[in-house]
């Protein structure tokens, strides 16, 4: 399998492992966290409004929808729109022929999928600044994510969550 399709297959496996992913932002953060901690996703991320974001990943999701391998449902929720992603039958068939070996993927994604997008945004932001001291990371979160009003306790929780995720790949 060529590299291009291998990257598509990895993303599809992650969505299949999670069952259903609700929200584009949530999907972005899940892939970033997985990449940062262990899994071989190749999409490149930059810091955007909601933390690490990959234009390449957005493109890949759109391509998979156009290819009929991913199902995207846009629904109105309260004052905003959200998107739900699941694998289609042709998508599953594609995966049977093109599966990539990624041990521990299912547990990892099931766990992240239980968290909300706001918390995953914080976790991914903490990971983005992982070369900084915790105090500096807190400053970054408080200045760059002012509107989210994260608390110190939530930041502590994000650090603990990262540690707990690391145990899932052992």
């Amino acid at each position, binding site marked *: 399998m*060529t590299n291009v*399709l291998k990257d598509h297959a990895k993303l599809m496996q992650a969505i299949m492992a999670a069952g259903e992913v609700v929200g584009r932002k949530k999907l972005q953060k899940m892939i970033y966290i997985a990449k940062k901690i262990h899994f071989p996703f190749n999409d*490149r991320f930059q*810091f955007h409004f909601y933390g690490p974001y990959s234009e390449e990943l957005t493109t890949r999701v*759109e391509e998979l929808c156009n290819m009929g391998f991913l199902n995207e449902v846009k629904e109105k929720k309260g004052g905003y729109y959200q998107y739900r992603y699941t694998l289609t039958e042709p998508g599953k068939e594609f995966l049977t022929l093109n599966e990539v070996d990624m041990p521990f993927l299912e547990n990892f994604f099931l766990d992240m999928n239980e968290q909300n997008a706001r918390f995953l945004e914080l976790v991914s932001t903490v990971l983005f600044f992982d070369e900084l001291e915790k105090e500096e990371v807190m400053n970054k979160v408080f200045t760059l994510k002012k509107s989210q009003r994260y608390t110190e306790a939530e930041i502590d929780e994000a650090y603990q969550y990262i540690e707990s995720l690391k145990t899932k790949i052992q």
Partner: protein
Amino acid sequence: MLVPKVLYFSICRKILRNFVLFWYIIEINKVRVIGKGAGKRMTYSMEKLSEEKVFKDPVHRYVHVQDRAIWDLVGTKEFQRLRRIKQLGTTFLTFHGAEHSRFNHSLGVYEIVRRMIDDVFDGREEWNAGDRLLTLCAALLHDLGHGPFSHAFEKVFDFDHEDFTRAIILGDTEVNKVLNHVGPGFPEKVAEVIAKTSEKKLVVSMISSQIDADRMDYLQRDAYFTGVSYGQFDMERILRVMRPREEQVVIKKSGMHAVEDYIMSRYQMYWQVYFHPVSRSAEVILTKILHRAKQLFKENYAFKHEPHHFVSFFCENVTLEDYLKLDEAVILYYFQIWQEEDDSILRDLCCRFVNRNLFKYAEFDPAKEYKKLAQLNTLFIKAGIDPDYYLVVDSSSDLPYDFYRPGEEEERLPIHLLMENGELRELSRESEIVDAISGKRRTDHKLYYPADLLADESTGADIKSQIRDLLE
């Protein structure tokens, strides 16, 4: 021993004078006296050159430098290195004029930002004059970490040039010394603007957004050097109607048509130049050369010429020093000598790149044809042609303009028009042309293969014939 009082005072005076002199020598590096006779003193961050310097530029006519710090940055070896890295990578194999460098482009982005600040923003309430040098430095240095044939290199060796931009700005480099001279913490501030992690969102948006100095320069510059006519738009007009706001630069409604032109020009450039299939073919081969050399190194293959410059890349422990040593001249040297290697794949791929004997391509629909791809893969192996290096799917994708509206979870900051009543309106709500292409991604997949090897029927004629049938 008692020292006479007069001598004692004389010694003290000398010590004091030496101390003052010593202090002056240190400070003269930070503080320069300017304005003859006026007695004005200015810090390095405010220091101007005694005479403005200009670079002749084919796109902006002149690039003007008045600030000492900018002049010093241009002279650093890390910035000069950008002269040896082409802006458009392999595009020169399609458009022979596209030999311009990242040095040209970086100066161009700096000049656009300088014009925004000095000619349009200066004196406006929403613009913080104290951010001028920070913005200029970030504009000048935004591509500093690009390596040779960046995109292929990053893919093969799995790194991001932005990490090297940061490492150069914050590391033990000449650039870092100049920035530190401006003030403590200044290098970090510049790095944060470039990484888009700065809280100064207006400054970030001037260099990186859907209408920024980076894009405005590369569209015009790449159009000029490739010789195509698509990249034209009225930049002077856009600059005149830009207005600073807290979160981003906005455009006066009266400038909407100039912005429409800019967006259409971007769309054309992507499909006519950046994604040109022949340039993509060259990049596919370049990527495969790097993969092959890495693979051979890992298998302890005895290179005729030891690939010294690549060793740390192959071993995945690249230092900043190693990285800065690598430029396109070095890469092309290796490609030249690898044409004489014993490994037939490395030799063949290098000959193809150096002599522009590129892969041919066919349209490919991954959703409908992935089974065909698997079939081709098997046939290539049977024909003795390694599909890992000679059968490649390559995708190009672009979104000309995107927007988000309040209530949608999108990540791209849209272009905002400043209406006469002071309200902001998202561009596609006012422009029918932009609305027509907003959020519409175009993707193109192609399958690359060596047509000459498949046409050679001296071996595996039947299998090659089957392959050709599948590819046609």
